[in-house]
């Protein structure tokens, strides 16, 4: 009986956690060699016309407070270690979004000697938002899609817990 209750409790807890995670994604922005184009569009998403706070997204200053790392630009020689460090400073669970052609593939800067590659050669990326630069609407759409996939993943975990409790019951 106690284990069943425990399972139910775990399941509920998991659902609450997922709900909170999906509804309160705080982001930090790191430019690892971008031309600014993506950066100003990201900044534009928090301003009145787009207002990302509607979805609970807040731009944070400290990596410790952030859930989502928004990366722009190709990765330059000097930015590589900084990018890794910012990623490591973030507490789990954390997600990475690569914004713009350069972040996805190096874009127009492929082959430049100062560029070591694109974001997913340095840290794992969860979502890609293409464009040079992507419009603010596209960035918001990308983030919302990421949240949607979190929701689905969270439900899957909760489902597993439910399945486990069912087997325990029988």
């Amino acid at each position: 009986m106690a284990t069943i209750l425990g399972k139910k409790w775990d399941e509920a807890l998991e659902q609450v956690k997922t709900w909170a995670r999906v509804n309160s994604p705080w982001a930090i922005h790191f430019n690892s060699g971008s031309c600014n184009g993506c950066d100003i569009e990201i900044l534009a998403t928090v301003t009145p016309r787009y207002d990302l706070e509607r979805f609970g997204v807040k731009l944070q200053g400290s990596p410790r407070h952030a859930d989502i790392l928004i990366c722009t630009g190709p990765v330059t020689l000097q930015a590589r270690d900084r990018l890794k460090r910012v990623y490591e400073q973030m507490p789990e669970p954390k997600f990475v979004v690569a914004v713009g052609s350069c972040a996805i593939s190096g874009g127009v800067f492929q082959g430049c000697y100062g560029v070591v590659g694109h974001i997913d050669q340095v840290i794992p990326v969860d979502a890609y938002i293409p464009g040079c630069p992507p419009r603010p609407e596209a960035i918001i759409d990308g983030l919302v899609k990421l949240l949607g996939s979190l929701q689905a993943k969270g439900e899957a975990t909760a489902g597993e817990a439910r399945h486990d409790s069912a087997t325990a019951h029988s």
Partner: protein
Amino acid sequence: MDIVKDILAILIFPAGLAVMAGGLAYEWIDRKLVAQLQNRIGPRWFQPAADIVKLLAKEEVLPEGVDSRLFYGLPVVALAGVLTAALYVPLFGLAPAHSFSGDLIVAIYLLSMLTLCSGLAGANTNDRFSLIGATRTLTQLFSYEAPFLLTLLGPAIVAGSWQISEINAYAGGHWLLFTQPVGFVVALIGLMGKLELPPFDAPEAETEIVAGAMTEYSGRGWALFRLGKNVELIIGLTLIAAFYLGGLSDPLGFLLKTLALLLAVAGLQALFARLRIDQTVGLWWRAGALLVLAQLLATIVLKGMTA
């Protein structure tokens, strides 16, 4: 059985969950108002709750070289302090859970615990931004604390009591907003200083020192500090409404009065550029403290003459 009742009182009502929920609701109203003033839509109603739950479920990173007992303990002490303070104020317009003569002093002391704890928390981490943030937090504490205390002293003197419920009852018949306007304004601004709201957010000025004393906090500790701030917001508004806006005796009046105050606070937040820490200190000591002191003297003299 009495102990159980006390525990229930602390946990459920009037302090505890209800206060925290109230604090979150007020944070939402504040954020929503500021967003509206900035021509944005603003967060959804459950946003602050989602933020807190998410932070609670997040990994808490212990930075290198910090005293782990202090690091984990300070947020708990801070939240416990403000929650205890909630016992003595007429929250939601209901009579305070505990009341004794001199509880005003205890409440003020407990409210300062939060600031003190966050300052210590910043000083405890080795991060440079935290250290500067901690220095600024404590500097700001010492600059607004005296004027803020004086503003609560004014109503206490005219009411002739140090007990919050008695002052509240006295204020029910006297709108001190009109007899002590300076005190009211300084108290409201003092509350903003206490909560480090713009334009007094130099201790956590994002563009200078990232998140100030809180830079290294993640997960649970950061959640508790945030929660503490929310509770402090609602207690502060309650105190000012009780003392200056004709007392609090019913939930409807509480809502109307505190929300009116919150509207003023949000407006002030949206209206000004951040003050530098030296400007903040100057403002409090040169303008705030002196004006309140002058008014206090006038109050005492008037009271002496009428008595």
